[in-house]
């Protein structure tokens, strides 16, 4: 999706507010949203579908609202789409399920339980596939010219560009399909690009940009 989220290399976003030395959450609601996102996930959701739902936020809201606010907006959208709640319930700020028997809420988790869950939820995204990797380290490749209309992880700034395979990462879940609920592994590589290949003003630079890219984003150069 050529959405507002695809920010790499876009211009006009001004200087960086470099000071951020406070705690992890600057306002209470930020922490609440962080916690909600950890413990309220619809069945079968994938990280890529969640990311895509965030990408689909209206551009003016994506840019104009604080970061964790956009998480809340994303959560709302996934909950509604998956049937957890309705727009009417959100307007009323209460459950309107007429015949619903309020079940027991999930048991409270302690700090120790949460820390254990954080540790246990070090999700891996790699897996074995039959096909051998097409590319090898050191090989020159060129990225796809086109993105696609749905979720994808080849940023616009790195399309149609020449780079070099720097590492093989293994076969990882392919995000373009995972965002549609289908888990398929595909070989994934780290690809290094000369800055001058990406940016008109970087001519003569020795700097590099490295991206982890899936095999179907790449062709032999």
């Amino acid at each position, binding site marked *: 999706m050529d959405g507002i989220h695809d920010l790499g290399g876009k211009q006009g976003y001004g200087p960086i507010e470099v000071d951020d030395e406070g705690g992890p959450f600057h306002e209470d609601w930020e922490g609440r949203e962080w916690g909600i996102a950890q413990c309220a996930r619809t069945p079968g959701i994938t990280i890529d579908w969640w990311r895509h739902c965030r990408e689909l936020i209206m551009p003016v809201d994506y840019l104009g609202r604080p970061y964790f606010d956009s998480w809340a907006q994303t959560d709302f959208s996934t909950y509604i789409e998956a049937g957890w709640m309705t727009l009417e319930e959100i307007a009323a700020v209460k459950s309107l399920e007429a015949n619903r028997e309020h079940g027991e809420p*999930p048991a409270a988790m302690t*700090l120790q339980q949460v820390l254990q869950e954080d540790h246990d939820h070090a999700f891996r995204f790699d897996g074995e596939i039959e096909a051998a990797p097409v590319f090898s380290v050191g090989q020159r490749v060129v990225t796809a010219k086109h993105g696609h209309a749905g979720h994808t992880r080849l940023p616009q700034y790195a399309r149609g560009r020449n780079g070099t395979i720097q590492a093989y990462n293994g076969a990882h879940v392919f995000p373009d399909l995972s965002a549609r609920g289908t888990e398929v592994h595909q070989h994934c590589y780290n690809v290094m690009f000369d800055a001058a290949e990406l940016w008109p003003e970087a001519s003569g630079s020795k700097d590099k940009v490295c991206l982890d890219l899936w095999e179907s984003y790449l062709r032999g150069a």
Partner: protein
Amino acid sequence: MSDFDAKKVAEIHEHLHSHLPSESALRVKALETLLVDKGLVNPQTIDAWIEAYTEEIGPKRGARVVAKAWSDPDYRQRLLDDAPAAIDELGYLGKATAHLKVVENSDTVHNLVVCTLCSCYPFSILGIAPAWYKAAAYRSRAVRDPRGVLAEFGVDIGDNVEIRVWDSTAELRYLVIPQRPAGTEGMSEDELAELVTRNSMIGTDRDLGEG
């Protein structure tokens, strides 16, 4: 269950745009209230997650890993070979670090980490990302103008140093190992860990100065 229906989600966002409360705090409050009312979430578990990422999980973990890598050549090698296993020696494996990679600064290379497409971050080892990391200014400029970005952080990178920007486009996450400052030979791991800034592990800080 989701139908993975992007068109429907776009319409939901448009509807929410004009129907949600106008302040962030009120929007999140509505979200939590409704989840609790539906019995989908226990608010005490939210409290526990906040506590976990305020008191326990944060950049001190990363700093400990860096200090250990500085002090122990074998550990450094294990970290380079298999970072998830190496951080789990300290119990730090967790959210978003199952495919962690470490990248080392040197006299001739400086590493900088960004996620241009969202704001991917190695949570279990660095905690919650700083505000600037998640902002459009950093996400847009880090890949295109890393030297300008670093200058805004007060870091000047000489022409003899190559900058490598790592854009976190897949599930790999990056931890920068800054250079060990001169004059710290006699320091303990605890003392060394105190020198390591959060920004130095993202790459927006470079010279950690003397201890």
